[in-house]
C-alpha cells in the first residue's frame, strides 16, 4: 500500500526519532512510504488564531504537496484534524474546496490508519512499562478516534496500561493558546501532570506532538521522573 507521510512541522523540528519510528512501523506493516517534499505545516497556528488568509497559504501548499497521494498518514490527530478543516477554509472557492476535500478524504492519523485501513491491531511490539495514555482532544473530538490507540497499545507485550483520571480534559496546549494564555495553560497542564502522577504510571504515552511537547515540557520543568513518549516509539519497540 502506498502511503504519503505527513510528518508535521513539530516532528520535523523536534521529534525526528518519532518520525523515523513512524516510517519503520508502517514499512514493517508492508506500506511503501513516500515523503512529499513540498510539505511544511498544516496551518493550524494561523487558523486557530483567526488569521484565515495566512492559514489558507499554508493549506494551499499542503494540498498541492499531497493531492497526488493515495493515503496521507500523520502521527498527529490534531494535524489530521486540520486537514479535515480545509474544505471549510475554502468555502468560497469551489476549485480549492474540491481539491481540499479530496485531500481531507484520504487523510488518516497514524494509529487510525493502522487499525482501520490496514486492519492490524497487533504490530508485534514489546515494551515493558507501567504506562498511561493521554487522549488528545482533536483526535477524540474532531477525528472521533477513540479506540485505535488503545487497541494497539493493548497488544504491546509487557505494557501495562493504567487509567488516567479526567483523561477527557485538555492538557492546556491548544497551539497558540499555550503561549497566549500562559497562566491558564499552566494550571491546565499542572492538573494533567497531577493526574498522570496519580495514575502511578512511569511513562505517559500520547499520539500528538503538541500535547507531548506541552506535558513533557512541564514534567521536565518540574523535574518529575515520568517519561513521555509518542505512541509510534512504543509501537516500534521490540524485545
Amino acid at each position, binding site marked *: 500500500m502506498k502511503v504519503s507521510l505527513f*510528518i508535521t*512541522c513539530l*516532528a*520535523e*523540528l*523536534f*521529534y*525526528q*526519532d518519532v*518520525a*523515523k519510528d513512524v*516510517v519503520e512501523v508502517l*514499512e514493517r506493516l508492508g506500506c511503501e512510504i513516500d*515523503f512529499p*517534499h*513540498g*510539505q*511544511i*505545516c498544516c*496551518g493550524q*497556528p*494561523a*487558523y*486557530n*488564531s*483567526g*488569521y484565515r488568509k*495566512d492559514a489558507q*497559504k*499554508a493549506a494551499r*501548499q499542503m494540498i498541492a504537496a499531497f493531492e497526488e497521494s493515495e493515503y496521507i498518514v500523520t502521527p498527529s490527530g490534531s494535524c489530521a484534524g486540520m486537514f479535515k478543516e480545509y474544505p471549510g477554509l475554502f468555502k468560497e472557492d469551489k476549485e480549492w474546496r474540491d481539491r481540499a476535500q479530496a485531500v481531507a478524504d484520504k487523510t488518516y492519523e497514524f494509529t487510525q490508519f493502522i487499525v482501520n485501513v490496514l486492519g492490524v491491531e497487533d504490530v508485534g511490539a514489546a515494551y515493558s512499562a507501567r504506562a498511561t495514555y493521554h487522549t488528545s*482532544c482533536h483526535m477524540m*473530538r474532531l477525528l472521533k478516534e477513540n479506540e485505535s490507540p488503545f487497541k494497539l497499545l493493548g497488544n504491546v507485550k509487557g505494557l501495562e496500561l493504567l487509567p488516567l483520571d*479526567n483523561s*477527557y*480534559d*485538555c492538557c*492546556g*496546549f*491548544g*497551539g497558540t*493558546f*499555550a503561549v*497566549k*494564555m*500562559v*497562566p*491558564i*495553560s*499552566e*494550571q*491546565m*497542564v499542572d*492538573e494533567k501532570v497531577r493526574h498522570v502522577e496519580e495514575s502511578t504510571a512511569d511513562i505517559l504515552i500520547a499520539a500528538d506532538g503538541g500535547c507531548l*511537547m506541552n506535558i*513533557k*515540557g*512541564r514534567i*521536565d*520543568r518540574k523535574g518529575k521522573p515520568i517519561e513521555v513518549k509518542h505512541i509510534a516509539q512504543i509501537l516500534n519497540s521490540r524485545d
Partner: protein
Amino acid sequence: MGMKIGDKPFFDRVDDALENDFMRNAMASAQDRLRDKKLDATERDDQIGDWEEWRNAGEEIRRHTLENLDYYLDQLSENFAAKGGHVYFAKTAEDANHYIQEVAKEKNAKKVTKSKSMVTEEIGLNEALEDVGCHVDETDLAEYILQVGGNDRPSHIVVPSLHQNKEQIRDTFQEKAGYTGTEEPRELTAFARSQLRDVFLEADIGITGCNFAVAESGSISLATNEGNANMVTSYPDTQITVMGMERLVPTWDELDVLINLLSRSSVGQNITTYVTNLTPGVEEDCVDAPKEFHLVILDAGRSNALGTEFQSALHCIRCAACVNVCPVYRQIGGHAYGSIYQGPIGAVLSPILGGYEEYGELPYASSLCAACTEACPVKIPLHEQLIRHRENYVAKQGKPKTGEKMAMKAFGVGASTPSLFQMAVKGAPTFLKPFVKDGSISNGPGPMKPWTSIRELPAPGNDNFRTWFKEHKRGRK
C-alpha cells in the same frame, strides 16, 4: 449592573481567579459531579434511546425556529395578547427596563419578587426597579445568596453562586441577615425558606425569566427545582416575564423535546422538579394567579447574530453543559470572563451582545479542545464559532497586537515556501544552540519566552529527517 462583571482587564481577572483556591476547587468538583450526572442522564441512560438522536432533534427544532423567528414571535405575541396579556418588544436593555419601570409605577408597586433569570441580570433590571422605589427580592437560592452578600455576581448561568462555599454563605447570612445556624446546606436552605415565604405572599409584582415561550398558545415555560418560580407567579397581582427573543418554540410538541434536553444537560435530571407553564387569561375570581401578565421580548444585541455565521449561537438553551466541561472555566471560574455569560457559550455570546471592544479577548480564552461542541445538546459548533470570532477580531473589529500580526504574516510566508522552512529547520539547532542545556531549552529567546516561562522546550534535533529518509529509502532499494 448589567452583563459586564468588574472593570479590571482580562489578565488581572484571571490572576484574581487563579489565586482563589476555594473557588477553583469548587469549580473542579462541581464539574466532575455535573459531568457524571449528565452522562448518567444522557448517553448512559438506555431508556431514552440514542442521545445523539435527541441532540439532532434539538438542533433541528432550534434551527427551524430561528430561521422563522419573526413569524413565531408574531404568533407568540398575538396569542399572548389575545388572552389579555401585554407584550412589549424591547430593542435595548434600556427600553425593557423603562417599560418595566412604567408598569411598576402604574401599579404603585413597592415589593418585587424574582425567580432566577439571567436575562434580567443582563439588563440590570434590579437597579432599574430600585430607581423607581421598588424593593427587589431574588428568590432562587443561589441568586438570594448573591443578593444577601451585597454586590456579588453570577459565576455560572445555572448555579450563579457556584463560587461560594457553605462557610462563606453561613458568614454572609450571619452578618447580613441575622442567621444564627451552622454551615449545613440543609440549615442554610431552611433559613432562606423561612425568610422568603412571607416575601412571596406579600409581593406586588413577580418577575421571571423564560426558559421557553410556546408560540402556538402564547405560553411561558419555566423550569426550576425550588418551587420559587411558582411562588413568584402565583401571589403578586402582576407578573412580568422577560425573555430573550430567541427563547421560543413553535408548539407544545417541541417544548417537550427542549425541556428534556435542558433538564438532562444542565443538571442531569430527567425533568426539573417544576416545569410551570403559564398562559394569560386567568378567571376574574381566581385567587392565586396574577391579574395582569406582561411579556417583554428583548433583542439587546441578539439580532447581531441573525443571518451571520453566529446565528446558531442563538440556538442556545442556557443549560451550561459547555460550561460544565470547559477545562478553561474549570481553572478560572466564571467571574474571570467579565460577563454574566461565561464559559464557551459566554465567550461566543458576550462579543455578539456587547461587542469586541469589551469582550474581544474572551474567544481566545479557549484551547479549542471542542469539549463544548461535543457537550452542546443543540449542537452549536461552539469551538468553531470561537475561531470565527478570532477571525473577525483580527480582520476588522478588534485590535490584535502588531507583533502577532507580523508573526502570522511571516508564518503564512514560511508555511508556503518550502525553501524558507528548510532554512529554518536546518538553522534552528545552530541558532538555538546557546540556549540549549542537556537537550532542552529553559529560557528561550523572543517568541519562545512565553513557552519557556513555564515549560521546557525541546532542543531542535541535529538530525535532518529528510536527509535520513532519503538515505533510508536508498538503503531499502
